[in-house]
């Protein structure tokens, strides 16, 4: 247990150092500020006082940036180890492939969470600077967003072991963003299709990761109030189960990968 803890801490540190020294997070923040500062100064038709659109755009950017960070973090866990051949000295150490996978996943998630926390700090600061207030559901929304990031890292991690980096990033983004925007409408789309295609759409609806479950942006922006506690925990349980399945598959693929 002590060994596993030390190994995990080492892998978490590695992910942290890599993420923060790559400067992706800072570049994203600068880009976000470059988009948001002019927006916040805009007075549509000379009318002042609108703020929800700023919250919505800022949250959209936070979501987009967090997805970018999570997919990148998941993608970078194993392929670079194989390309730079560091996988050999790593696996020659007293660590099994399964433990390495879990440790690296925890590291990537923790690093992505740190970036997400940083984004939220900036978001909160910007709202406070504008004299805005926060709805009570903010912590709940952040927890669900963290769960989404954990899911996105797992999706990207599994993909990175199966397809090339560019294919993985494209497919993972397509699936997660597609489900984020269209996931809840798939049954309606299926109704108008021929039976075979409808079956495929329904299968996608049943199997694909429902990233839209974690999206509480509209609740925050429009002050709908918190999600019911039972539903909140059901969504978290969904994330845990889905991540477990993805990691099991990734472990299977990594275990069969020839070194």
């Amino acid at each position, binding site marked *: 247990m002590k060994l596993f803890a030390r190994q995990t801490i*080492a892998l978490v540190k*590695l992910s942290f150092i890599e993420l923060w020294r790559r400067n992706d997070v800072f570049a994203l923040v600068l880009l976000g500020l470059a988009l948001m500062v002019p927006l916040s100064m805009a007075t549509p038709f000379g009318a002042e006082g609108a703020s929800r659109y700023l919250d919505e755009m800022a949250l959209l950017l936070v979501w987009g940036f967090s997805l970018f960070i999570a997919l990148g973090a998941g993608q970078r866990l194993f392929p670079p180890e194989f390309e730079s051949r*560091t996988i050999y000295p790593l696996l020659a150490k007293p660590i099994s492939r399964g433990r390495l996978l879990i440790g690296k996943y925890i590291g990537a998630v923790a690093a992505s969470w740190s970036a997400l926390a940083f984004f939220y700090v900036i978001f909160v600061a910007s709202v406070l600077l504008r004299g805005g207030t926060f709805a009570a559901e903010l912590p709940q929304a952040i927890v669900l967003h963290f769960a989404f990031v954990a899911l996105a890292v797992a999706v990207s991690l599994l993909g990175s072991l199966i397809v090339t980096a560019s294919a993985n990033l494209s497919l993972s983004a397509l699936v997660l963003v597609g489900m984020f925007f269209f996931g809840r409408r798939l049954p309606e789309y299926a109704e108008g299709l021929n039976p075979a295609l409808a079956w495929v759409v329904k299968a996608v609806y049943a199997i694909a990761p429902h990233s839209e479950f974690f999206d509480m942006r509209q609740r925050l922006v429009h002050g709908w109030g918190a999600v019911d506690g039972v539903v909140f925990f059901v969504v978290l349980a969904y994330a845990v189960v889905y991540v477990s399945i993805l990691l099991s598959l990734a472990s299977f693929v990594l275990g069969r990968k020839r070194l």
Partner: protein
Amino acid sequence: MSECSDIVYLERVTRVFARAKAVDDLSLKLKAGEVMGFLGTNGAGKTTTIKMMLGLLAPTSGTVKVLGGDPSDPCIRSHIGYMPEVATYYPYLNARELLAFYGGICGLDAKTVRSRTDSLLESVGLAYAAKRPLKTYSKGMLQRAGIAQALLNDPDLLVLDEPFTGLDPLARIHFRELLRNLKERGKTIFFSSHELGETELLCDRVAIMKKGHCVYQGPVKDIAGDGATNLERLFLKTLGEAK
């Protein structure tokens, strides 16, 4: 000698990749404190053999035992140090952080890692660049960082894949001295190399591989130094390349 007392014990080991035999019926033993050079042309099966010794690859048939156990067992691997042929270590870390990372993977506590890091960086000649990111390192410097990580867990068996690649003459001399010191401390060393001169200077025994077969195994003292049967001539002769 029984298999239990051998640090490395390979018995009739064969590894097949898509019907091609990378290693064919290889038997090899290495006793405690010995230094063995593992020679052969490119594609002879040296790296495949090393991977099987480290538990990274399972043999198709035959027995592989290292330090008396199965090398796929992490407990066994905690006593092995391995340096790969060419590795581009994590570009965003510096040498100190790299060793801290590998120390964590080995399960070493922070204090031990710190004390070993200082002495290792000193002994491989990287102390002056310990805080520089690895992405700024030359190939030789990366090789030295690789040596340091292999020695970090104070291994009983050191497995080195082409350790002299990329080292300048001075670094080679330092590295040779380092290996000699390790040998004097009773460590067992197994290394593959194309550097016949270095092998001759360092090894107790050599094994020569050709197309997956071990075509020669014997003590260096039997072949070296008489001007007629030195290692280079033996190497060419066993590979059928002698004029």
